[in-house]
C-alpha cells in the first residue's frame, strides 16, 4: 500500500477511539412510566401493554396480558365504567381510545377459542387452602389469583350460582347471561372449588372456616339495602331498586306504574329506571343528590353511572333531576300520589365537613304513583358480627387485610369501595398477592410506577384519527334481553388499538435511532432487558436530550449523570 504523508489521512471510523460520552451531564434512559389508563384501572390492568399486542395482531397474547390482572374481560368490557377511557391521554388530543370495546372483543375471542388462562399450574400437593366467602367478582378474582400463586382456593356462595351482583343486579341488556355463564365457568374450571347454597352464619361460621384454612377472604357483597324513608314516611309496599331488579331478572315482572320516581344516582337506579320505562311507565324520574357530568360539576360530585348507560337512559327518555332530593311523599290514604323535590348541594360547613344542604323555597311537586329507593346497599351482618362497622361496611387496609386479624382479608362492595366490578377484581388481586406473600413469609411487592401526563408525549408524531365505536341498538328496538351495545369486528379493533399513544412505553417507532446526531442509539436484533429494541451507547452519547424530546410516547427520560 502506498504510504500517504503524515497528517493527510485517517483510518475509517477511527473516531470511535474518542469517547464523547465523557461530555455528558444528563443521561438518557428508558423509563417505563405508567400510562394513565393503567393508573386509572381499579382492576390493575395495563391496557397500553395489551393494546400493543392487539396492534401487532396477536389477540391471544393481548388477552393473556389482560387476564394477568383481570380474569373477566368479557364481563368488564361490558359493565365497567372504564375510568381508563376517561383518563386516556388521547382524550386530550381527539377522542379517547375505546378500551372497553377492545377488552370485550378479547374476552369474547377467548370464550370462542377456549384459550387457556396463562400462569396456572396445578397447586403442589399440600398447598395451603384459602377460603373465599362469596363468588361475586371479588371472590372469583381472589380465587383465580390465589391459583396463580399456587394456593388452593375454596369458595363458598350463598346463592345457587356464582356471579354475585353480576347475576342478580345487572340487566341482560348490559350483560347477556350466556357471556356471564361462559366466562365464569372458564375461570372456575381453572381449578376453583365452589360450594354453592352455603351461607355464612347459616351453614358455617367464620371460626369453622378459620380452623380449616390458612387464610380467609370475605367478599359477601352488599346484600342489604340501606334503610330509606322520607321524613319518617315509607309508603306501603315500597320495594328498593335492587330487590325489584332481582325479581325482574328472575321472573321478568315489575310493578305496574304510570309515573315512577327513582331515588338515587347509581347504576342500580338507572337500570331499574330504564326497566320501568320499557315496561310501560309513561314518565320515569331519577332524583339524585349528585350532579350530571360536566365542567360545572366537581369530579367527586358526579353521579356514579357508567357514562354510556347515562347517555342511553337519557335517549330512552329517563328524566334526571340532579342536585335534588325527596323532601316529602304525598299520600292519599296509604296510596302515593306524588313527591316533593327540593334542590340541594353538598357544601362545606363551618366545621369543615361537607354536608348536604337543601334550599328552602325550591320545593316542587312531581306526580308519581311509585317511588323506588336506590340509595345504596350495605353488608348483611349475618355471621360477620363485629367485623361490620357502623358505616355498614367492612374495614380493610390497602392490601385487603382486616384490621386485627392476620388471616382475614376482605374486598369488593362489602368494603364500601367505589362499587364497580373492576374495583372488586382489583381487591381480589391485591388480597391474593398479600395472602400469598404472607404465607410465603415475604412482603407483598407491588411497586407503583409514576403516571405519565400528556405533556411528556410529543404529539407532533401523531395524526388525528376517528375513533371506532360499536353500533348501539336504536331505542325503538331495545327490549329486556337484547344487548344494547354491539361488538367491534377485528378490523375495527385493530384500527382502534392503532390509535394508542403507547404512553410511557416504547412504540418501536425508530425516532431515537433515526434522530441521534451521534449514532449513539443502536437498534438491536433481540429485545433489550427493558423490552425495547434500542440501547444507548454511553461511550458516545453526549447527552443532548434530542431522543427524549422527540420520543412520541415519553419512554426516554434524561436523568443526571451518576457520579
Amino acid at each position, binding site marked *: 500500500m502506498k504510504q500517504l504523508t503524515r*497528517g493527510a*489521512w*485517517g*483510518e*475509517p*471510523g*477511527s*473516531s*470511535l*477511539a*474518542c*469517547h*464523547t460520552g465523557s*461530555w455528558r451531564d444528563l443521561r438518557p434512559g428508558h423509563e417505563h412510566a405508567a400510562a394513565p389508563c393503567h393508573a386509572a384501572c381499579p382492576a390493575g390492568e395495563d391496557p397500553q401493554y395489551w393494546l*400493543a399486542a392487539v*396492534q*401487532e395482531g396477536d389477540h391471544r397474547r393481548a388477552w393473556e396480558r389482560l387476564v394477568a390482572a383481570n380474569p373477566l374481560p368479557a364481563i368488564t368490557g361490558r359493565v365497567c365504567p372504564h375510568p381508563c377511557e376517561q383518563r386516556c391521554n388521547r382524550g386530550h388530543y381527539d377522542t379517547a381510545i375505546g378500551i372497553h370495546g377492545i377488552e370485550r372483543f378479547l374476552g369474547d375471542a377467548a370464550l370462542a377459542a377456549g384459550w387457556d388462562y396463562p400462569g396456572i399450574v396445578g397447586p403442589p400437593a399440600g398447598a395451603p387452602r384459602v377460603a373465599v366467602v362469596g363468588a361475586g367478582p371479588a371472590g372469583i378474582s381472589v380465587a383465580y389469583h390465589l391459583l396463580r400463586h399456587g394456593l388452593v382456593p375454596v369458595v363458598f356462595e350463598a346463592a345457587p350460582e356464582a356471579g354475585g351482583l353480576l347475576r342478580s343486579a345487572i340487566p341482560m341488556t348490559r350483560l347477556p347471561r350466556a357471556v356471564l355463564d361462559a366466562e365464569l365457568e372458564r375461570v372456575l374450571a381453572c381449578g376453583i372449588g365452589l360450594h354453592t347454597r352455603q351461607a355464612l352464619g347459616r351453614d358455617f361460621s367464620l371460626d369453622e372456616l378459620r380452623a380449616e384454612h390458612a387464610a380467609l377472604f370475605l367478599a359477601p357483597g352488599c346484600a342489604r339495602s340501606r334503610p330509606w324513608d322520607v321524613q319518617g314516611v315509607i309508603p306501603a309496599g315500597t320495594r328498593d331498586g335492587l330487590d325489584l331488579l332481582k325479581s325482574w331478572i328472575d321472573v321478568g315482572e315489575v310493578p305496574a306504574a304510570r309515573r315512577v320516581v327513582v331515588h338515587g344516582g347509581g347504576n342500580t337506579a338507572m337500570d331499574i329506571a330504564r326497566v320501568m320505562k320499557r315496561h310501560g311507565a309513561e314518565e320515569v324520574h331519577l332524583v339524585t343528590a349528585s350532579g350530571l357530568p360536566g365542567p360545572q360539576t366537581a369530579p367527586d360530585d358526579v353521579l356514579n353511572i357508567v357514562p354510556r348507560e347515562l347517555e342511553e337512559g337519557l335517549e330512552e327518555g329517563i328524566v334526571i333531576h340532579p342536585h335534588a332530593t325527596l323532601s316529602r311523599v304525598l299520600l292519599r290514604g296509604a296510596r302515593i300520589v306524588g313527591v316533593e323535590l327540593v334542590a340541594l348541594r353538598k357544601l362545606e360547613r363551618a366545621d369543615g365537613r361537607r354536608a348536604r344542604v337543601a334550599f328552602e323555597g325550591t320545593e316542587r311537586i312531581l306526580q308519581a304513583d311509585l317511588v323506588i329507593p336506590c340509595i345504596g346497599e350495605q353488608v348483611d351482618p349475618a355471621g360477620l358480627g363485629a367485623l361490620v362497622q357502623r358505616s355498614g361496611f367492612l374495614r380493610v387496609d390497602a392490601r385487603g387485610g382486616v384490621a386485627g386479624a392476620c388471616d382475614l382479608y376482605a374486598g369488593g362492595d362489602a368494603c364500601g369501595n367505589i362499587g364497580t366490578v373492576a374495583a372488586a377484581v382489583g381487591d381480589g388481586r391485591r388480597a391474593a398477592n398479600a395472602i400469598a406473600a404472607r404465607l410465603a413469609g415475604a412482603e407483598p411487592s407491588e411497586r407503583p410506577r409514576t403516571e405519565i401526563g400528556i405533556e411528556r408525549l410529543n404529539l*407532533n*408524531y*401523531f*395524526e388525528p384519527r376517528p375513533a371506532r365505536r360499536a353500533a348501539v341498538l336504536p331505542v325503538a328496538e331495545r327490549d329486556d334481553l337484547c344487548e344494547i351495545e354491539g361488538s367491534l369486528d377485528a378490523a375495527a379493533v385493530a384500527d382502534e388499538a*392503532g390509535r394508542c399513544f*403507547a404512553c410511557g412505553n416504547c*412504540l*418501536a*417507532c*425508530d*425516532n431515537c435511532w*433515526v*434522530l*441521534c*446526531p*451521534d*449514532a*449513539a442509539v*443502536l*437498534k*438491536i*436484533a433481540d429485545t433489550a432487558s427493558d423490552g425495547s429494541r434500542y*440501547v444507548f*451507547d454511553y*461511550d*458516545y452519547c*453526549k*447527552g*443532548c*436530550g*434530542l431522543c*427524549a*424530546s*422527540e420520543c*412520541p410516547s415519553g419512554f426516554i427520560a*434524561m436523568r443526571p449523570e451518576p457520579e
Partner: protein
Amino acid sequence: MDESPRQLIARQREAEPRYRGLESGHRACQGCGEALAARLVTEVAGGDVVVANATGCLEVFTTPWPQSAWRMPWMHSLFENAAAIASDIEAALRHQQRPTKVLAFGGDGGTFDIGFQALSGMLEREHDVLYVCYDNEAYMNTGIQRSSSTPHAAMTTTSPPGRERMGKRHLKKDLLSIIGAHHIPYAASASVAYPRDLQRKVRRALEISGPTFLLVHSPCPLGWGHGGERTIEVGRLAVQTGLFPLVEIERGAVTAVMPLRVPRPVSEYLALQGRFRHLFADEPRAREELEHLQALADHNIAVYGLLGGAPDALDADGADTVRRGGAVA
C-alpha cells in the same frame, strides 16, 4: 470467555441494520443538526461513494487528526473548492468507467459564499455529482459570523443587534432558485426535522445521472441559541411557519412542495432561538422586524403554494407521523 458490556455493545454496533457513513466519536456539539444531517445523507448514499468536503464545521468535527469519523472515501481540500474537487473526482471515475457516486459536502459559508463559483461551474459542466449543502445559516466553525444564508434580522457576531440595526440587515440568499436557474435535473430543500423526506430526496438525487443539489436545513444549537434537545423542534417549526419551505425543483421548475396544513406563526419559531431574542424586546423596531419575518414566511407560502390543499399524509403535519414499528411515510 464471557463478553464484556463494551464488547457486547461494539458487536451490537456492528450488527446494526443500516449503513453508518458517519461514525460515533465525532466532536460535533450536543444536538448538532449538521452531524445528524450528514449521518442521514451518508446512511442512504452507502459506501460506494467518494465525498469531497469543503472547510467548515463538518470537516473539522469529523476529522481531528489522526482520527476520522468517516467510513467512506472522503477528502477535504479547501473552503472554496469542494465542487471543483468533486468535479475532478467524477471525471476521473468516469474515465475509469467506475459507477461510484460522487458527493460534495459544504456548509452554507462554503456553498452560498466562498465555494459558489466552483459550484456554479460544476453544475454548468453537468458533472454527475450530488452536492449537499448543510445550511446552518452562518459561519459557525469560525465563531458565528453572518453568511449570505443567515436569515434577515438574525443576530451573529458580525450582525449584532443594537442602536443601528436589528440583527442582519440583508435577506437570506435564495440559493435554490439560483441553482434551479442552472437548469439541472434536480434540486431540493430538506430538513433534519423530516428525516424520511430528506432521505427520499437523497435517493432521488442519486438515481439521477447529472448534477443534483440538496439544501438541508440544519439547526445549530450553539449558533442559533437553543438547547441541543430542541434541534428537531426548531427545524420542524422552520418548515411549519413557511420560513424554510421544502420544495423540489426540476429543470428550473418547482415540481413538488411539502404543503402546510396549518401554518404556525413565525414568532413560535423565533422565540425558541437566542439569535432572534432582540425581536421580542418591547420596542417598535422589534415589532416591525417580527412582522417583516412573518411577511417573508407568508411570501414563501404564496410563492410556493404551500397552502390550500386538503390534509395530506405527506404535509408538514403528517410527514413525520409514526406508528408502532416505524414511520408511516
